[in-house]
Every structure is written in structure tokens, then in C-alpha cells.
């Protein structure tokens, strides 16, 4: 394998491995981490592209974090890249859980573990609040009133109702298609 390619695979693997090891409390937490690494640090992806990929990951079956890893790996290094990022995402939980299931009773009742986890949860809350503000700013910057309205409606549906998020994504996609078509017709 040539040097640069090996380096690309290694970066993909190590980034997803570390990110997966740090996603405490559900798949969505992976988004600020992926954003920081692939958009801000490596500059391999644009913010908009990243969000579109997240939406695809969300609307596919399975685990959000794995789906996001697949699509990012595929975008940056083809099918081989996707396999590398999946491996990076799956290995940390496989290792941690295999170890923890051996000492489950100790782990679940240890007060130091509980203390660290409680602190980490508060930190995750801050990280999520930060990314939410960034994304809202991004929607505001589009300057499209219908985008902002759609965002408010979707947020209300997601917070206040039990509707499956896949339907929210589909509905917003349809709205986006229709509104863009109307915009083009008006300007033509």
C-alpha cells in the first residue's frame, strides 16, 4: 500500500476509534465530535455536507454512530474506508463491554464510577448545547424563512410528540424539495 493511503486509513481508524470511545449517552453525541475532527480540525468535510450525511445516517436502520461512520469513511476513502471507520467505531464498545461484563456487579455499584459518569453527563450536556447553537446559527444564516419555520416545527414535533424521527426527516426532505422548486419557479 502506498504511504499516503495507509496514512489516510490510519487517520480514519484512529479518529473514529477515539470518537466512539467518548460517545457517552447516545448516538447524537457523536455529531459534535465528528464535526470537530473532520470539519474543524482536518477540514476534510464541509459543515453542510456533514449535516446531509448525518440526515442520511439518521434515516437508515441501525445505530446512528455506525451509519455516520460508514458514510464518512465511504466519502473519504471508498468502500475500504467505510470498513475501516466501522471497525474503528465498533471496537471500543466491543472491548469496554467485554471487560465490563466480567466485573459488572462491581462496575454498576462503584461510587467512583458513578461520580465520574455523573460529571461526564454534565459535560456532554454542555457539548450538545454548544453544537445545537451552532446548528441553529447555520439555519438562520441561510436567510430562508421557510428553513427557520421548518426547524421550529421539526423541533416541536421531536420534543413534544413521540413521532419516529425518520418521519420528521422524510417530511422535512419533502418540504425542502417543494420549497426549492417553488423558489426556482418564482425567480424564473
Amino acid at each position, binding site marked *: 500500500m502506498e504511504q499516503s493511503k495507509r496514512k489516510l486509513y490510519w487517520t480514519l481508524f484512529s479518529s473514529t476509534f477515539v470518537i466512539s470511545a467518548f460517545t457517552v449517552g447516545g448516538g447524537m453525541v457523536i455529531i459534535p465530535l465528528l464535526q470537530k475532527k473532520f470539519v474543524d480540525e482536518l477540514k476534510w468535510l464541509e459543515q453542510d455536507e456533514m449535516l446531509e450525511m448525518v440526515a442520511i445516517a439518521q434515516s437508515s436502520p441501525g445505530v446512528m454512530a455506525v451509519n455516520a461512520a460508514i458514510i464518512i469513511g465511504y466519502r473519504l476513502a471508498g468502500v475500504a474506508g467505510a470498513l475501516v471507520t466501522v471497525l474503528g467505531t465498533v471496537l471500543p464498545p466491543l472491548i469496554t463491554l467485554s471487560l465490563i461484563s466480567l466485573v459488572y456487579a462491581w462496575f454498576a455499584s462503584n461510587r467512583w464510577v458513578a461520580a465520574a459518569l455523573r*460529571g461526564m453527563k454534565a459535560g456532554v450536556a454542555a457539548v450538545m448545547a454548544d453544537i445545537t447553537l451552532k446548528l441553529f446559527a447555520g439555519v438562520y444564516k441561510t436567510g430562508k424563512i421557510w428553513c427557520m419555520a421548518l426547524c*421550529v416545527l421539526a423541533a416541536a414535533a421531536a420534543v413534544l410528540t413521540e413521532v419516529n424521527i425518520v418521519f420528521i426527516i422524510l417530511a422535512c426532505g419533502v418540504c425542502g424539495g417543494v420549497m426549492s422548486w417553488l423558489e426556482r419557479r418564482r425567480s424564473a
Partner: protein
Amino acid sequence: MIYWQLFRTFMIIGVCCFGGGYAALPFIQGWVVDRYAWLGMEQFIDVVTISQMTPGPIGINAATFVGTQLAGLPGAIAATLGFICPSVVIVLALSRFYFKYRSLELVGGVLTGLKPAVAALIFASTVTIVRSALWETGVLTEPNLAALCIAAAGFLALRRAKAGPMTVIFGSGVAGLLVYGLLGVK
């Protein structure tokens, strides 16, 4: 053979669960507890607790835990592989479609609509996380002050000091050890 059964069962769960890791839990319960009785209800609750406590995607955590309990490390690998197989195929197919057609006007329009959707969904998930991390009792007037302080410090570090998310999560863990563990704050 147990490995093949684990692989097949988690593959079915992997196809069925749309909408994130929590959506997988009822399916896992349906197959692993109700149908095959591989785990009792008590053990299943352990799976849920431990999946939420440990880092990593909840669905993968649950697959690994069930696999380990039933057939050791090879069982964990079989269950995890089965679980992600459908995702790999479906997401790769969708990705090909996306990268091929995203420059088309219609597809571009649809993608424009997805941006506010993702922002909204992340907001919803933030609401859930903030609520469970900072208002542990569920009463609005009784926030956990220590958690509130840790979160506020983390937020300032992200916004003002441009700290990375991992630094903040790790730092908060250390703060948790000090505040809840060492000082014994409730």
C-alpha cells in the same frame, strides 16, 4: 449453533430499528427475552443500564453484552457483526446515491430541507440530555447545582476558550470524581 443464531437475530434487529440506539432496545427485548429467553427480564434491565453507563453507541453495547453473556467474546463479535451488517449495506447504497445525485436541483432542494431537520433533532436530543444530567429529580426548581456548574464551566470552555468536546467531556469526568466522589456532594 449459538453464534449463527446470535448473528441472525441481531441482523434482524439491525434491519428493524430505525431512529437510533434507544429504538433498538424494544426489539432486543422482543427477541432476546420474550422469544428465545436467552436473558431474563432482570438481566435485560442490566443490559440497558450498562449500555447507558458505558461509552459507545447503545445498540452496539447491548449486542456486545448479550453476546458475551451467552457465548463469550466470539458471541459478542457474532452479535455485533450481525447487528451492523444491514447498516453497512443500506448506508453504502444510500451514500452512492447521495454522492451521485446531490448536484441535481431536486435532490439539492431536498437536502436543503434536511438541514433544519438535523438541527431540530439534535436540539431534541440536547433537551433530553440536559434534563437528565442537570435536573435529575425532574423538578424544574430543583436543578443539581454541582452538575449545573460543571456544565456551565464546560460550555464556557467550548465557547470562550475554544476547548475541544473531548477535553470538556474528560474534564467533566474528573470534576465529577472530585465533586461527587471526593467531596461527597449529593
